[in-house]
C-alpha cells in the first residue's frame, strides 16, 4: 500500500523549533530564503523554555573588566581543552550582540541600578556574566524568538516529527515527517537542512530534560552519514530535586547558588571546601556534581541521598523576587518553603556536550547541505559545559547555521531529487508498529534503556561496566525492532515513543563506545579505573561514523590554538583579572 502524502518544497528546512532552530530560521528568512521550521511540540514550548538561570555573554554591565577573552578562557578551561577553540572564540565574541538583539526584539531582562541588563554570577564564570529574567530566562528567550518568527514569512509546522533525511548523490535533499495529530506524512524537499533538535537527556531516568530530548536529529543525521563527536560527555547538573519521587531530576537552577545558596552534607559541613576551596559552591558542574555524589556515597547524604542546599539567609523577599519559580516549584511539588528551610538536591542529567561535528563558522556537517546548531551540535563545550553557555550557544550558532545554509544554497541552487521509493519504504517502516498488540512495549524498552545507561554509563564509570553496558544496549537494540503501538495513528504517544526510543538507542551506543575509548577522567567523564586527566587524551576527540550499519569510532586531533589565544592562558589569572591588575 503506498501513501499519498503532502509534499512541500523549501530553500531551507529547519528541524527543531527550540532556540537554535528559531534563530536559524530568522537568519535564513532575513536572507530572503523560503524557510520551514518543524517542531515536535507547539511553538514556544520546546525544551529551551525550561532554561532558568541565564544567558552568558560578556556584556560587562556589572563587571566592566569582563570581555570576550575571559569568556573564551572560562569556556575552554571548563571544557578541559578538548573544545574546538575556533567555536569557542566566535562564540565569546558574538554572544553579546546576540543578547542585545533579543532586547531589540522585545525581550525584557532584569536591570542593574543604572538601567542596563543585569548579570548574575554562575559556576566557573570569572565574572558576573549571566543576563537573566528571574529564573525563567529560557522562556523569555524562546518567547522573544517566537514573537519575532510570527512577524516573518517562515512557515511553522507544529507537532510534527521528522523521521528520516534523504540524500541526492551525497547531497542533502530533504526529510519526511509525520503530523502527531493524525499520523499523516509530509515530505519536505529542501536545498539545505539545519538540524536543531536539541539533546538526548531522556536517555537517563533522573533527568532535567523534557520528553522532546531524545536526540532525533543527531540520530537522523548520523544515519545520513554525519559524524558524531565527544558523545561520552554527558553533563550531570549537580542540583536536581530528589524528593518526592515524581519530581526526581527536575532542575534546581544554578541561580540558587549564584544568588548565594550554600551546600552542606548531613553533618552540616560545607563540603565543597574539600573539592574546590576557591570557588566552593560556584565551582564547575562536574566538580560540584561529583562532590555531592561522593558525600552521599560516604554516608553523609540527606535522607534521600543528596545534599542540603540553603538559601534562607537571603531572606524571603529577595528569594521570592530573584527565584520565584524555585520558590513556587518547591511549595507546589515538595511542600517545602525554601525561604525557611534548606532543601535536598542531587545530581541529574542535564545536557549533552557531544553531538554532530560541525564547522565552527558555518555549522556545516560533513554531509553537503546539512547543518547543525544548538545542543545537538558539538565542539563548543568540550568535556563540560558552563551554565549559561547553552542559551548563548543556540543564539550565536543558530544564526550562523541559518547564514551557513543561506550561503550553501547560493552555490547550489537546483532543488535536489528525493527518491519516491525511499520515501515509501520509510513510511512503511514508521507505520509498521501501529495497531499491533503483540510485541515489545516502547515505554518498557525506554525504561530498560534508562536503567542500562544509569548503571553502566552514569556519573562514575569503569571499563568493565561500560563493556557490559554496550552488550546490553546491543541486545536491547534487537528487542526494540519488535516494538508495537496499539491504537491508531491519531495522536498516539506509544507510537511516538517507538521513534524516540530507536533514536536514543542509536546514540547510546556512541556514548558508551566513546566512554570506553576515553581511558581517563576529564570533565563529565569520570572513570574510576582511570582517575586522572591524561595529557595524551587531551589531544584527541572521539568521532563516530556509521559504516554499513555499524558504529565505527575514530580519534581526531583537537584543533591547536594559535599563539595569541594560547597566551591568554599564561597570564597567571583570567585575562580580565590579569589586565585589571586585581587578584583572582
Amino acid at each position, binding site marked *: 500500500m503506498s501513501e499519498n502524502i503532502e509534499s512541500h518544497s523549501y530553500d531551507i528546512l529547519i528541524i527543531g523549533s527550540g532556540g537554535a532552530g528559531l534563530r536559524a530560521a530568522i537568519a535564513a528568512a532575513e536572507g530572503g530564503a523560503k524557510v520551514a521550521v518543524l517542531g515536535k511540540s507547539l511553538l514556544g*514550548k520546546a525544551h529551551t523554555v525550561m532554561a532558568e538561570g541565564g544567558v552568558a555573554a560578556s556584556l560587562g554591565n556589572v563587571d566592566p573588566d569582563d570581555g570576550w577573552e575571559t569568556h573564551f578562557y572560562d569556556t575552554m578551561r571548563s571544557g578541559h581543552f578538548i573544545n574546538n577553540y575556533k567555536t569557542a572564540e566566535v562564540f565569546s565574541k558574538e554572544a553579546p550582540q546576540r543578547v542585545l538583539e533579543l532586547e531589540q526584539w522585545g525581550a525584557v531582562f532584569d536591570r542593574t541600578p543604572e538601567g542596563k541588563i543585569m548579570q548574575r554570577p554562575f559556576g566557573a564564570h570569572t565574572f558576573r556574566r549571566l543576563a537573566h529574567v528571574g529564573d525563567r530566562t529560557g*522562556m523569555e528567550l524562546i518567547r522573544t524568538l517566537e514573537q519575532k518568527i510570527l512577524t516573518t514569512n517562515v512557515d511553522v509546522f507544529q507537532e510534527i516529527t521528522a523521521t528520516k533525511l534523504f540524500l541526492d548523490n551525497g547531497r542533502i535533499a530533504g526529510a519526511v515527517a509525520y503530523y502527531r495529530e493524525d499520523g499523516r506524512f509530509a515530505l519536505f524537499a529542501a536545498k539545505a537542512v539545519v538540524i536543531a533538535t536539541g539533546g538526548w537527556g531522556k536517555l537517563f531516568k533522573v533527568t532535567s530534560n523534557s520528553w522532546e530530548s531524545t536526540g532525533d536529529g543527531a540520530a537522523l543525521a548520523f544515519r545520513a552519514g554525519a559524524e558524531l563527536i565527544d558523545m561520552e560527555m554527558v553533563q550531570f547538573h549537580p542540583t536536581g530535586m530528589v524528593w518526592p519521587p515524581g519530581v526526581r531530576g*527536575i532542575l534546581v537552577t544554578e541561580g540558587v547558588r549564584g544568588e548565594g545558596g550554600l551546600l552542606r552534607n548531613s553533618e552540616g559541613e560545607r563540603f565543597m571546601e574539600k573539592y574546590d576551596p576557591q570557588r566552593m559552591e560556584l565551582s564547575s558542574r562536574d566538580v560540584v556534581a561529583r562532590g555531592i555524589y561522593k558525600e552521599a556515597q560516604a554516608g553523609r547524604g540527606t535522607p534521600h541521598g543528596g545534599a542540603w542546599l540553603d538559601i534562607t539567609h537571603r531572606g524571603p523577599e529577595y528569594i521570592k523576587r530573584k527565584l520565584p519559580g524555585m520558590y513556587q516549584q518547591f511549595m507546589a511539588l515538595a511542600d517545602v518553603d525554601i525561604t525557611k528551610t534548606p532543601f535536598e538536591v542531587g545530581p541529574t542529567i542535564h545536557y549533552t556536550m557531544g553531538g554532530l561535528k560541525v564547522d565552527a563558522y558555518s555549522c556545516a556537517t560533513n554531509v553537503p547541505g546539512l547543518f547543525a546548531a544548538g545542543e545537538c551540535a558539538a565542539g563548543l563545550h568540550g568535556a563540560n559545559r558552563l551554565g549559561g553557555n547553552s542559551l548563548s550557544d543556540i543564539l550565536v550558532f543558530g544564526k550562523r547555521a541559518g547564514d551557513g545554509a543561506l550561503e550553501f544554497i547560493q552555490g547550489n541552487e537546483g532543488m535536489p531529487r528525493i527518491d519516491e521509493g525511499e520515501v515509501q519504504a520509510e513510511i512503511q517502516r514508521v507505520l509498521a508498529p501501529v495497531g499491533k498488540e503483540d510485541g515489545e512495549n516502547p515505554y518498557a524498552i525506554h525504561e530498560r534503556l534508562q536503567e542500562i545507561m544509569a548503571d553502566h554509563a552514569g556519573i562514575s564509570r569503569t571499563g568493565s561496566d561500560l563493556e557490559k553496558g554496550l552488550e546490553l544496549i546491543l541486545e536491547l537494540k534487537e528487542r526494540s525492532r519488535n516494538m508495537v503501538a496499539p491504537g491508531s495513528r491519531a495522536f498516539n504517544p506509544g507510537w511516538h515513543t517507538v521513534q524516540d526510543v530507536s533514536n536514543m538507542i542509536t546514540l547510546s551506543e556512541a556514548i558508551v563506545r566513546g566512554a570506553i575509548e576515553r581511558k581517563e577522567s576529564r570533565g563529565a567523564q569520570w572513570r574510576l579505573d582511570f582517575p586522572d586527566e591524561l595529557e595524551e587524551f587531551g589531544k584527541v576527540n572521539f568521532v563516530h561514523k556509521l559504516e554499513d550499519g555499524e558504529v565505527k569510532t575514530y580519534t581526531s586531533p583537537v584543533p591547536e590554538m594559535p599563539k595569541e589565544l594560547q597566551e591568554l592562558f599564561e597570564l597567571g589569572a583570567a585575562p580580565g583579572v590579569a589586565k585589571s591588575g586585581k587578584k583572582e
Partner: protein
Amino acid sequence: MAEEITLSVFRGDRSGGREQEYKIPAMTGMVVLDALHYIQAHQAPDLAVRWNCKAAHCGSCSAEINGSAKLLCKTRVDDYENEVIHVRPMHTFPVIKDLVTDVSWNYEKLRQIPAFQPAINAPFTLQQRDVDRLQEFRRCIECFLCQNICHVLRDHDAKDAYWGPRMMIRISELQMHPLDTADRLDLLKGAAGIGYCNITKCCTVVCPQGINITENGIIPMKESVADKYFDPLGGLVRKMHK
C-alpha cells in the same frame, strides 16, 4: 494517602467520546500528569496528553480536573483524597484526541498583533521599576487556561469578536513598554474586541502564573481606549463599559 487512586479520563476525539476509569497505585507527591504517564506506560499506551517541562514552565499540559482549569503537572493527586479524579480536555477548544485540543486559533491571533517597535536601538536604559509590569505579563506561559475559562469564548464562542485575555495581556505588555512606538488601541477597540470583556476576573483567578490579567492589563487598556476614543466624555463611557 490512599494506596490506590482512581482517575476517570476523557477518551475520544472530534466525533465524541466518554470518560474511562483507570486505577493506579499512588506515589508520594504524585501530580496528575504522573498518574496519566503511569496509565500510558501500563494500561493505555495511546492515551493522548501534551506535556513538556513537568515544571509549570511550558504551558502544554492544560486540562480540566474535576471541573477546574489547571495544569496537569502542577496539580497534586493528594489534593483529591478519596475522590475520583476526573480529567477532561479544555472545553473552549476543539478536541483532537483525549486531552489534546486544537489551540491553533491562539497562534493565529498572536500573529495578528503588531510587533514591538522600539524607538531606539539596544542596549536600552530601562529601570527595573519600569519593567516590573512588563515582566509580570511576560511570565505568561501560553497555557491558554484563561482563554479556556473566559465566558465570552467558552459559553458564547465569540472567538471572531473577542481575542481573549491572553491576547489582552500580550497587547498590554507592548502598549506599556516605555520604548514602543506602535499603536494597538485601534486593534483593541476593533478586531480584538476589548469591549466584550466585562471584568468578571475569571481569567485572573485561573492563571497559573499569577498574572493579574484584569487589574493590571485589561482595565488600564480599557481606560486607554476610552481616553483615545471617547474623551471628553471618557469617564462616563468607562462607567458604561463596566
